[in-house]
């Protein structure tokens, strides 16, 4: 199929493997296929396009959404039901609680005429969530074909390797297919593919080339890169729009865009400022330096005693208990006072602010234990506001 190559780029070998696995419509396919690869390596996209263009009956489920087994099973069944009864239009909600029910209901649903003589594909995206469900779910799906005696193939999509899935009781081994990361050439090809209609493909390809030059060392995520490409493209076109440079004037364009992209790497890419703010800046031609990013708001305001409780907690978390005598016996000053000021309400509010965290078990009501989780810089800033020289009391700085 020639049009396939235009839609799915750089994944020819995977596509051909999958197609040969699928075989003809009525052939039984491999019972379960496990596809893995990094983020944005085209797993979902390739599978989905393949199933759609070949018009195979399939159900696509994202496991993140299904936080209980029941939701997962019901979603599959209902979608299947929808597939089979699309012609007569009747549509009832199926309820299903256990895997046993699922197998039974699955048989019923697939009795429909239009599903009978062809392979049904169930795609489970983000399959790693299956591991947190009941133990029988994953092995069950792996041999679904056998269990319900139907022509069905389950495809798992995951970012994690198969070895981390394999239950210790053993199970049916799926066909494992790896989607390798895109190379820089691949990225270039894919990103240049979606060029805006008002500019030529070459012009856009040159832009992508510059973009990859800046970002490839830090980011290989296709989604992120295409997002950045879209965000910064108007800036690249600016000289052309203004008439200062022609589309072929690559050097000039490069000089214009390169510092801009570097700035983007420090701000937008880290989500220090949002993309909408970035776009606005770009439009106003303002300096992104004046906009305060997320991490510039480091200041936290706390009541006076809370600060001392936090300092005391920090000291208690990082000094060995045996050194207490050494630090606090000589000095009868501030610290001694604070140890009496412990108020539980205040501690809980510090916990909700995530400055302290509870260690040990939740149900230990009589003696809960906390640990201070703030950084040294943070606690130093806090201590400075109350004129307390924390370094003097820290074991690590002796």
């Amino acid at each position, binding site marked *: 199929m020639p049009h396939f190559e235009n839609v799915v780029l750089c994944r020819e070998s995977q596509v051909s493997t999958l197609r040969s696995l699928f075989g003809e419509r009525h052939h039984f396919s491999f019972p379960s296929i496990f596809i893995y690869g990094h983020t944005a390596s085209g797993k979902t996209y390739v599978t989905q396009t393949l199933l759609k263009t070949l018009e195979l009956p399939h159900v696509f489920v*994202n496991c993140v959404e299904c936080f209980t087994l029941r939701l997962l099973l019901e979603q599959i069944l209902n979608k299947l039901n929808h597939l089979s009864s699309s012609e007569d239009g009747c549509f009832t909600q199926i309820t299903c609680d256990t895997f046993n029910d699922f197998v039974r209901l699955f048989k019923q649903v697939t009795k429909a005429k239009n599903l009978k003589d062809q392979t049904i594909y169930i795609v489970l995206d983000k399959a790693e969530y299956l591991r947190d469900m009941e133990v029988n779910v994953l092995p069950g799906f792996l041999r679904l074909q056998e269990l319900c005696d139907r022509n069905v193939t389950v495809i798992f999509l995951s970012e994690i390797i198969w070895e981390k899935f394999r239950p210790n009781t053993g199970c049916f081994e799926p066909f494992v297919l790896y989607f390798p990361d895109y190379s820089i050439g691949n990225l270039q090809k894919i990103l240049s593919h979606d060029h805006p209609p008002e500019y030529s493909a070459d012009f856009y390809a040159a832009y992508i080339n510059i973009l990859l030059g800046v970002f490839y060392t830090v980011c290989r995520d296709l989604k992120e890169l295409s997002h950045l490409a879209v965000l910064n493209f108007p800036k690249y076109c600016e000289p052309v729009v203004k008439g200062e440079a022609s589309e072929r004037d690559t050097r000039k364009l490069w000089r214009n865009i390169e510092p801009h992209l570097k700035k983007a790497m420090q701000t937008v890419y880290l989500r220090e400022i*949002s993309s909408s703010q970035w776009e606005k800046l770009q439009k106003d031609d303002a300096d992104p330096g004046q906009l305060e990013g997320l991490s510039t*708001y*480091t200041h936290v*305001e706390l009541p*006076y005693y809370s600060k001392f409780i936090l300092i005391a907690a920090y000291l208690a978390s990082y000094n060995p208990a045996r050194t207490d005598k050494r630090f606090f016996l000589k000095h009868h000053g501030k610290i001694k006072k604070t140890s009496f000021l412990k108020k539980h309400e205040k501690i809980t509010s510090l916990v909700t602010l*995530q400055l302290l965290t509870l260690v040990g078990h939740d149900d230990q009501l009589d003696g809960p234990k906390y640990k201070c989780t703030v950084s040294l810089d943070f606690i130093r800033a806090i201590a400075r506001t109350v004129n307390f020289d924390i370094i003097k009391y820290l074991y690590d700085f002796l």
Partner: protein
Amino acid sequence: MATSSVSKGCFVFKPNLKKRKTSVPIEEYFNKGKNESEDSKLRFETYQLIWQQMKSETEQLQEELNKNLFDSLIKFLQKSHSGFQKNSRDWGCQIKLREIPTAALILDMKHFLQKLCSQLMDCHVDVESKEQEKDIQKKIHCSMDFLSSWYMNVTQKMDPGRPGKKRTSSSQWQSPPVVLILKDMESFTTKVLQDFIIVSSQHLHEFPLILIFGIATSPIIIHRLLPHAVSSLLCIEIFQSLSCKEHLTTVFDKLLLTTQFPFKLSEKVLQILISIFLYYDFSIQNFIKGLQLSLLEHFYSQPLSVLCCNLPEAKGRINFLSDNQCENIRRLPSFRRYVEKQATEKQVALLTNERFLKEETQSLLENLQVYHTNYFLILRCLHQFTSSLPKYPLGRQIRELYCTCLEKNIWDSEEYASALQLLRMLAKDELMTILQKCFNVLKSSSEKQLGSSAKRIEELLAQFQSLDAEAKEEEDASGSQSKGLQKTDLYHLQKSLLEMKELRRTGKKQTKFELLREKVVNFIDGLVREHLLPPETQPLHEVVYFTAAHTLHEHLNAAPRIALHTALNNPYYYLKNEALKSEEGCIPNVAPDICIAYKLHLECSRLINLVDWSEAFATVVTAGEKTDASSVTSEERNEIIHARFIRAVSELELLGFVKPTKRKTDHVARLTWGGC
């Protein structure tokens, strides 16, 4: 209560809701406490009136403070999904839409979000969503698919046009966004939050969602809670609300540093409220609650507080004062001091003639009003001077200055002296801007005496300006000389500098500017000494000042440990039963069992032997009774005492005074006062 259940267990019985409410009119409570129930009803009404005014003032204040933030947030919400509404299919749109617009709010005020909610709820759709979501929970069909199909339903239903109510804003939006507000983002489980964001980002094209995070600490928390893979799905903008300290300053300004409300707080009370705010909770709400409590307590405990209202009203009320109340006025310390200063005939008249007393009271109240008007104006002027000094000898905030002024004659303090010293070193432009500000402050009032002060400041300003002009002329004249100075070598320069220093030390020749500066400092010093007298010097200040700091402290900064100790150690304090009255260190055998056990345990060290304790307990309990060893019931009685002891000990354990220990058998460990 009986149950039909055959199994053992805990059963909850809901109390009967039909319980009759005993309805006592609130103002009745004002009668009960003190024996002087003068004008209690009127006092209560005055209290309510003033509190209403104060409350509406604070509410208005908060609304103003939040207005900016609120507006920008609304704007953000409106533009966020414009792409979605336009349904534009332009290039790149798809990628951008994958980001969920998110607003990160950094704030301390909870009610702000509630406000926002209520405004959005007006959009009618969201109201429905609330109801619907409840249904969803019942059916456990909480999938995103379900939610988005519901959304489609609702928006389509909206389209045919429902006439009437709050549709104004929603009708402009073809597909209104769904706004989800997460208060206290820090306390969410990270996993849930991450999954939710991932899921909803995938459904964003059919379910326009806007997230609003309420953050109490710093926005960095977003990065700490969410990995990059998730936070890259968000398009975050930050909105920061006013810091709570600034908020306090404004509240202070509007409620306390004003003559708008007759009610005033004494220095001690103010200190308590401020320190609770700064040291404990940073809560404006609590601060205002404290203010309300002071107000209530003042009207409750001070019979003369009936005069604590606006001046014309108070004058009217004076005429209707009872004899008792007149006596109350005469008993006021400040009034007595005032009387002593008067001539003899007037003293007699004040102490015997009711009518004369009332007239005098009227004029004194009037004076008090004038005193306050001047007081706050001068306080603000002084603050202008002292707030920019290095090291802030008189405090950075006006509230600190106010507290010092309330406490004592400020000009007697060392800090004031050093502040004046620093003022004498101010540069001209600084001094002029301060003077200009003072002039503006004074001009805002219409008071006569201070009008003359304002005029004086204006004159001083004019003099400074003329100084400017003169200086310019002088400079032109001495221009050549100064040029010569620049060119001379180091030796000559040092020499001339030394000469200049010498000249200054002798102090013979001050420049015109220095003279003028001295004048300004003396002028402000004079104003301070004249107007910033502590309120105790004013007759009848007791009428408007609430001074019972102790009561306030007891209510707001309760010490549960001490209360508990008192209750257990001296049960008479709370129970008021004459039989429980005892000398120090003595244990009456009729006291509640827990008190006896508690007192006995106080005498033990870290570990308490249960057997000894139980023996001692039995001895105390049976102390007053006739010993009748031969009685048949004695064994039974011992068992009862044993049971009572066990109950007392477990109650103490529940209260956290003792706990079982594994270190020694048959012992418990003490947890308080010298325990482990």
